[in-house]
C-alpha cells in the first residue's frame, strides 16, 4: 500500500512542479468565472431564477479540452526518458503503476475543480442553488474526466513521444465532442445515429448537469475507465513477451 501511495504521490507531484497544473487551473478559473459572471448578469437582467448549469457546462468543456495535457506525459514521457525501465524493474506490478498514474490524475482533477465550487457558494449567497444538482454536475465532470483520462493514459502508453500522445488524444476528444454533428443527417433511430448520440460527450454530460444520475451513463463511463486501464496494463506487460 505504501508503494502504491508513493507512486500516486510522485505522479501528482509532477503536475505541480511543471506548469501543467497552473495552466489548466488558470484556464478553468478564467473561463468558468467569465461564464459564471455573464450568466448571473443575464439572469438578473431577465429576472430569471439563478442557475448553475451554464457554469458547470463550461467547467466540463475546459476539463475535456485540457485532458490531453493531463494524460499525454503519463507513460510516453517515462518511455522517452528511460525511467520506465527503473519503474518496471522495481518490485511493483504493471497494474499498480497504471492505477497509480490514473488515481493521480483523478486527485489532480478533484484538486483543480475545488476552487470552482466557490462559484456555487457565491451563487447560493444571493440566490437559490440546488446543491443536489451541483453535486451531480461535479460527479459528472469527475466520471467524464476519469473516462477520458483513462483513454489518454492508454494512448500515452502506445506512444514514444508525449507530443504524439497529446495530439492523438486531443483529436479523439474533439471527435467525441462533435460526434453528434454527423448524426444529424442520419435517419432517426438508426444504429449509427444512436451510437454517435450515445458517445457524444455533450449528451453524456447533459443528464448529470441537469441533476440526473442515469445508471446507464454511470455504468458506461465507469466501464470505459476500467476497460482502458486494463488495456494500458496489458500494453505495459507486452514488453515482456515481445
Amino acid at each position: 500500500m505504501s508503494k502504491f501511495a508513493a507512486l500516486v504521490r510522485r505522479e501528482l507531484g509532477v503536475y505541480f512542479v511543471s506548469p501543467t497544473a497552473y495552466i489548466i487551473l488558470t484556464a478553468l478559473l478564467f473561463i468558468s468565472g467569465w461564464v459564471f459572471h455573464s450568466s448571473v448578469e443575464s439572469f438578473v437582467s431577465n429576472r430569471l431564477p439563478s442557475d448553475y448549469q451554464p457554469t458547470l457546462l463550461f467547467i466540463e468543456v475546459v476539463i475535456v479540452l485540457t485532458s490531453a495535457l493531463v494524460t499525454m506525459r503519463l507513460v510516453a514521457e517515462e518511455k522517452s526518458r528511460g525511467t520506465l525501465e527503473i519503474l518496471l524493474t522495481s518490485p511493483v506490478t504493471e497494474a499498480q503503476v497504471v492505477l497509480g498514474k490514473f488515481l493521480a490524475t483523478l486527485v489532480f482533477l478533484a484538486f483543480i475543480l475545488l476552487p470552482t465550487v466557490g462559484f456555487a457558494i457565491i451563487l447560493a449567497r444571493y440566490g437559490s442553488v440546488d446543491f443536489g444538482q451541483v453535486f451531480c454536475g461535479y460527479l459528472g465532470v469527475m466520471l467524464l474526466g476519469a473516462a477520458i483520462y483513462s483513454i489518454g493514459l492508454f494512448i500515452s502508453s502506445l506512444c514514444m513521444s508525449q507530443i504524439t500522445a497529446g495530439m492523438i488524444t486531443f483529436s479523439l476528444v474533439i471527435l467525441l465532442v462533435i460526434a453528434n454533428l454527423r448524426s444529424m443527417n442520419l435517419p432517426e433511430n438508426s444504429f449509427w445515429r444512436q451510437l454517435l448520440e450515445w458517445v457524444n460527450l455533450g449528451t453524456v454530460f447533459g443528464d448529470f448537469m441537469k441533476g440526473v444520475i442515469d445508471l446507464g451513463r454511470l455504468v458506461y463511463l465507469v466501464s470505459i475507465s476500467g476497460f482502458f486501464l486494463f488495456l494500458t496494463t496489458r500494453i505495459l506487460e507486452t514488453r515482456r513477451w515481445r
Partner: protein
Amino acid sequence: MIEVSDLTKTYPGVAAVDRISFKVEKGEIAGFLGPNGAGKSTTMRILTCFIAPTSGSATVAGFDVVRQSMEVRRRVGYLPENNPLYTEMRVEEYLQYRARVKGVPRSERQKRVDEVLERVSLQDRRRSIIQHLSKGLRQRVGLADAIVHNPEIVILDEPTIGLDPMQVREIRELIRQLGQGHTVLFSSHILSEVEKVCGRVLIIHRGKLVEQGTPEEIANRMMKTGRVRLEIRGDGRAIKEALDRTPGVARILWSSKGDLNTYIVEAADGKDLRGDLFRYTASQGWEVLELSHERLSLEEVFTAITETAARGAGA
C-alpha cells in the same frame, strides 16, 4: 547468485543474445565486456525482469526471472544504461521515493537513505534538484538508487559511460566497494576498466559469450601461440634470416633502431621457444639484450577474440 543457461533473445531478424550461459557466484564482481551492440544491455534487461527471454532460462538469487519476477526485483538493484532519473525531483526526495517503491519499511527508510547518500558522498547535495547536478553526481544518484534497498545483487549497465576520467575513477572505486557486500555484475565496453575492477570477465560479442574467466585465465588461454620477445644488437637482416630458419618458428616481427633489433617470435604450435632460442642465439654468439615471454594484455586478447568471432560470423 546469477545463473544463466542458454539464454536467447531474438528480435525480428536478429538474435540480440544467442544461447548465453554463465554463472556469477556470490560476492563476485563480474564484468560484462563487449563492443557496443554486443547484447550486454539486453542480457541485463532480462536479468532485471524488464524484458523476457525468447528461450533459455535465468535465475537470480535462486528465483526465475520470468516466473518469480517480483522476488527477483526485490533482490536486485539496477542502474540502467544512460542512468534515467526523475530529474525534477530533489536527491533525497528521489531516494526516499525509490526506497518506498522498493518496499523499504518506513522505520528504516531514512536510515537507509542517509547511508547510501554517505556511501556515494552526496550528503551535502541531498537538497539539490537532480537536473542541476553534473553528470558524475547524477551517476552517483543512480548508484545510490540501485543500492538503497540493500539488494543482494547489483546490476550496473555501463556505469562509467560519458564521465570524465576523474569521475570514472570515483565510480570504479564505488563499484569495488560494492563488491564487499553485494554480488555485482556490471558492463562496459572499455577493457581496462573491467580488468581493474572485476574478479571475472565475461566477453560477449554479437550476442554470443566468447570467453569467460579471470583476466589472467583468459590471457593464458589466448596464448596458445607462444610469443617471445628478443632484443639483439647486430646486423638485423642477417639475424632475422637466421632466426627464420630455426625450427618451430612460425612468424617473426622485426623492428630496429640503429643496430638495436627487436623481434617478436611466434611459435607455430604453442610451443615455448625460449629454451631453443636461448641455445641458438648463444651458439651464434649474438649480443642478446633481452629474451622474454611476451604476455598478451587483455586488450589484445579482447581485440583478437572479437576479430576472430567477427571473421567466424562473416565466413
